[in-house]
Every structure is written in structure tokens, then in C-alpha cells.
């Protein structure tokens, strides 16, 4: 059972979670292109700028968050995710070294997965918009 204060925390911090997930996806996407040898992958790729801006917003939101006791574990996962993803982003400055970026990125995403499992309302994949979404149990 989720209490009202925790429910409010979930609503307020869903965007932060989604933004961190988006930043991780953006970085991973660039890494796929780089690892596959695509010419599109470069440190000046506009998506990196977008990722940095989004990360700033998520980081600010995280600082403002006030987790309840029930939400504390979720918040800790989210905070650790932000630290690791921030490191991955800073590693992307200058040159796209896949290995140096991927290690903290994967660590950050693992924390996001843990956060998704720690409280309801945080989905790793937008299942309701995927093929299986039509089968949602009422």
C-alpha cells in the first residue's frame, strides 16, 4: 500500500526517472553508431547537447526531491544512477571512447532498473505503447 506522501513523490519524480532513462538511451544510441562504425557518431552530435541539457534538468529535480521513508530506497537508486550517467556524459567530452562511456552508463542504467523495481509507477519500457500493451490486465 502506497501512502499519500509517497504517491506524491512518485508523481513528482516520474519525469526525473524518465529523463535519466532518456539520457542513458541517447548515450547508448550514440555508442551503437560509434561501435558499428557509423559516420554519424561524433562527439559534436547534437544529441549529446540535448542529453546534457536533459541531464541538468533531471539532476536539479533530484536535488529538489523529498523522499518519504517508503521512497528512500528508490531515491538512492535514482541518485546513484544520476552519478554514473553524469560520469558517462563527462566521458563523452572530446572523443567517443565506447569503453570509457559504456561502463558507467551501464552501471547507471542498472540503478535505474533497480529504481523501477523499487516503487510502482516507473517503467523501464513503455509497455502500454508496445505490441503487448493491448493485453493490459484491468
Amino acid at each position, binding site marked *: 500500500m502506497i501512502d499519500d506522501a509517497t504517491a506524491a513523490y512518485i508523481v513528482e519524480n516520474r519525469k526525473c526517472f*524518465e*529523463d535519466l*532513462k*532518456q539520457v*542513458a*538511451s*541517447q548515450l*547508448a*544510441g*550514440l*555508442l*551503437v*553508431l560509434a*561501435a*558499428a562504425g*557509423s559516420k*554519424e557518431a561524433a562527439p559534436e552530435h*547534437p*544529441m549529446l547537447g*540535448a542529453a546534457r541539457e536533459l541531464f541538468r534538468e533531471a539532476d536539479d529535480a533530484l536535488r529538489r526531491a523529498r523522499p518519504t521513508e517508503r521512497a528512500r530506497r528508490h531515491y538512492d537508486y535514482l541518485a546513484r544512477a544520476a552519478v554514473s550517467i553524469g560520469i558517462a556524459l563527462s566521458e563523452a567530452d572530446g572523443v567517443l571512447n*565506447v*569503453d570509457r562511456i*559504456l561502463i558507467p*552508463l*551501464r552501471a547507471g*542504467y542498472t540503478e535505474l*532498473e533497480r529504481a523501477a*523495481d523499487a516503487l510502482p509507477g516507473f*517503467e*523501464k*519500457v*513503455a*509497455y502500454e*505503447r*508496445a*505490441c*503487448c*500493451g*493491448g*493485453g*493490459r*490486465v484491468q
Partner: protein
Amino acid sequence: MSAYSLWVMEYAAVPNYPQSGLIYGMHNQGTRKLPYCYVVIKGQGQLAMVDVGYNHKAHGEVLANTYGVRGWHSPREVLGEIGIQPEDVSNIFITHAHFDHMGNIEDFPNATFYIQERELSKWVWTMSLERRFRWLMLGIDPADIMRAVDLARQGRLVCVDGDRENVLPGIDLHAAFDTHTWGSMYVTVRNDLAANSQSSFVFCGDLAYGYENLRGHDPKDPEYIPIGLATGSQFGVIMAAEAMVKSVGGDVHRVIPPHEERLKDLYPSRITKAGLRITELALADGEKSQVV
């Protein structure tokens, strides 16, 4: 003569899936079973698959509790029913990047994966858009993208640009851009290895969920009806259906939708102890049946 044995392997299912999600326009017309399957292609010294299913560790609980997906079993269990281990699989063709088709990459440590370059590059482009465009990211798991990075670093990711013939003997990849997804593809197996094959099968991924997509509701008066979900266009889906049906000489039952439960009415099959169906489409010369 059959060059390849072909099996459709069920690995999970949704018992009651709304028809409207599968066949455009079938609103308020009840539900049907939606099996989740991948395809095994064995012969010519090759062991290949079309798609690999989803990663239960990452998604299983949510899919089971929230979306009613039942009976997930690992590739080791599923493939073991026909005497195959995941480590034996050498080539895997990913029809599109949705998590339930490419989510289990890491269970196949020795395979090379083929995917359309456009499928990856357009997802990456989509990720650069603002949040209000997030519907376009449907079905994509960021963890799968990271696994794809690993594949690329290991030289096990082949980005295909459009059609590619004879990727393995008698096996062709066909692009179906801007349809179910940006860079969907379907796989043709010319099972007599002839250029103008008389015994082709097409593995269509999610370009069709059921036979209604390929022949409409009245087989005597066939028409194409698009699927219930397209990131690209329904026009593209219909034109892809035409290309697939033409490539099998008009015999729609040689187009194999992996989510089609009624394959069992067309081809021999059996149910495993785990309650999953194995459907046998063809047997290579000298190969023993796995369903009789």
C-alpha cells in the same frame, strides 16, 4: 527437397489479447490468444533464428502481472525441446528492435545478429527528439541498445542497408521501411535454394500478426488489412504485405506471422510439457520430425 528445417517456437503467450490491437478496425470484437514465438532455421550446416524473444529478468514480472503474459520459458528450455542449445546458434535475423523480438540477445553468445541499419539509426534519431515525441520510442528497451553496443564491439552486429540476398544459402533479408517500425525487415527462406523458388517461406516479424492482415476476413475475396500498431504508415504495411504474399506466389499460408495461433491448423505441431507449442513448417532432407 527441403534445404532447411523450419520450426516456430512459442516461448510465452497472452491468453486474451484484444483483436483490435492486431487487426485494424476490429474494435469491441473480443480477444484471441497471442503467442510469442521465434523461428529456428536448421540446415546446410547452419543454425539460424528469426528474433530471440524478450529478457525475462528485465521484463518478466511487469509483463506477467500487468499485461497478462503467461508461460515464459528461456531459450535453453524452448530450444532444448528440439535438441538445440542457444550456444549452437550462429546467425540471428532481428525483424525489428522491439523488446519482445530482440530482448534476449545475451542468451546467444556465439551468434552474429543482423538488423537493418535504419532500424538503429532512426531509433537514435527518435531519442534526440523532445519528450512530447516519446510515443515514437514505443517498445524500445534502453538496455537492448546497450547490449547492441556490446555486439558491435565484438563484431557480432551486422547492420544491413536494404535488401540482402543469400545472407545464408537460400535466405534473403528484405527491408520494409516505415511500416511497423522504421527499419523492419522480413526474412525469406527459399527452401529449394532456387532463385525462383517454388517452396519459399516468409517470416514476417510484426508486419502481420494474423492471417486477416494478409487476406482479410473473407478468403474468397481477399484484401490486406493493416496491423493495429505502426510507427511508420499503414500504407507501408499494406505494400509490405503485397510484397511478401507475391514472393510466395500468392500462398498466404507460406507467410508466417509469429504471433498467429492458427499456424497449428496449417502445419503439424505439438505442445511441450511446459505448455508451449512447436510448429514444424518444413523438414530438411534426413531430419527427424520434432512434433510427431
